[in-house]
């Protein structure tokens, strides 16, 4: 017996399937076809089945089924929790780049307008300068021309960035509770975006997670005699960058190991596992203390 979208065919007999386009599409997804000695369906059987009267009707019905099925599949893939987080994280990172670029440019521009101005000895990073330019111009009421306008746009873009960062962090805690608990929502979201999805992240080895975001250094190492990178994006976490230089690589390695497990828990279970988290936090903290003490504990 052969099953195709419009019914089950047994020799010259046909048992039609009835329903709307979505029901046909759901049926197609459930049919398990074996590709051994497979023979494609014959559309004439649809007429025998009484599904349609002629070729034109057959194609029009089939198209409805195909469109319904594909629309449903697209909807389902987009409904996965990590898909939107991926776009949010990438938007956030691109906003950072844009804001920095524009701020530096505006600072340079401002210096041309004020020949005696210098940023030396002032500890004025570009974003603070931009903020003061935009505020000063607003007070004057003139608007400050294009420079003031651009500065104000950058300020409002920064506000949008702050709001987005909060949302990313909150969403990451929801989508990947274990990973976020270990390394914080923002860095967890960046790991997700570098890996390309939660499924992809959960299938990376710990060593892969350790160097995610250090691609240039990794390939420089593989190609030349450059030293291997100790950490990629996980360096952004305080446990790694606050660790003393000597143990930083070790902390990164232990953290990556626990992150790999956390990502798998997030993908396959989807809820926080306190027993694992306590154990992992303790183990990572221990890696951060000096070697001697650790030797005693063990």
């Amino acid at each position, binding site marked *: 017996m052969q099953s195709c979208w419009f019914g089950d065919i047994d020799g010259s007999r046909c048992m039609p399937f009835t329903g709307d386009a979505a029901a046909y599409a759901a049926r*197609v997804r459930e*049919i398990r076809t074996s590709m051994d000695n*497979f023979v*494609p369906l*014959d559309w004439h059987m649809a007429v025998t089945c009484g599904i349609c009267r002629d070729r034109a009707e057959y*194609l029009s019905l*089939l*198209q409805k*089924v*195909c469109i319904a099925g594909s629309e449903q599949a697209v909807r389902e893939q987009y409904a996965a929790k990590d898909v939107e987080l991926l776009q949010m994280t990438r938007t956030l990172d691109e906003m950072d780049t844009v804001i920095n670029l524009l701020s530096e440019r505006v600072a340079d521009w401002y210096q041309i307008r004020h020949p005696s101005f210098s940023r030396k000895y002032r500890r004025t990073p570009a974003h603070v300068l931009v903020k003061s330019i935009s505020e000063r111009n607003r007070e004057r009421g003139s608007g400050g021309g294009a420079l003031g306008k651009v500065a104000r746009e950058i300020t409002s873009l920064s506000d949008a960035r702050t709001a987005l960062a909060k949302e990313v962090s909150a969403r990451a805690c929801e989508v990947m509770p274990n990973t976020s608990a270990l390394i914080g929502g923002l860095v967890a979201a960046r790991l997700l975006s570098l890996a390309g999805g939660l499924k992809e992240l959960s299938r990376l080895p710990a060593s892969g997670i350790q160097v995610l975001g250090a691609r240039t250094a990794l390939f420089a190492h593989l190609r030349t005699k450059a030293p291997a990178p100790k950490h990629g994006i996980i360096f952004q976490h305080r446990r790694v960058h606050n660790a003393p230089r000597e143990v930083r690589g070790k902390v990164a390695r232990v953290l990556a190991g626990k992150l790999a497990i956390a990502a798998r828990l997030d993908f396959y279970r989807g809820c926080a596992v306190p027993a694992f988290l306590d154990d992992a936090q303790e183990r990572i903290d221990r890696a951060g203390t000096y070697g001697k003490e650790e030797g005693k504990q063990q």
Partner: protein
Amino acid sequence: MIRVGDVLVSKGEGGVYGERMLDGYRVWDPYRSKLAALYLVGTGIELLPETKVLYLGAANGTTVSHVADYVEVVYAVEFAPRPMQDLLEVARRRKNVMPILADASCPEQYAPLVEKVDLLYQDVAQPDQAAIALKNCVFLKEGGSLVLMLKTRSVDIRKDPDEVFRDTLDILMSAGLTVNESTWLAPYHQDHAAIICTK
């Protein structure tokens, strides 16, 4: 194939992707479509009003829309949801395009939908392009044609494109297909080759 002067065109409703119109025909740009490039650098395969096509790697439906202008029905298989959104829009306006969201290396996913076809067209960015084509030959009728757009850089970035091309030809011939034509698509597409076989 319809040509106006030297320009390859197809007959249908325009405005799919901002293509130019010429005497009421849609201009088929060889720089955007590998199949159009094939008709310009080689002979290609004649698309007839009764032809049934299984199109693997349909992407945004650019080439699909032109193929659909010529043939009876196109079964358009695409794996990624993003381009599928565009393909669905093409299908809503063209009665003979059947959009299928599935993996071309798993033909069992769309086996219940697809009938025997006259032409199997494949344009997928995968390392095992020859294997995918052979798997899908079950849908091809005896004497039907396979048009394989070989993306050599997707097979192996480190290998010489010529070597990938020869290896692929060997795989197809040893599977019992007859190779009728094989050509590079330069200058329109770099490191892409077209292989036309008969089952």
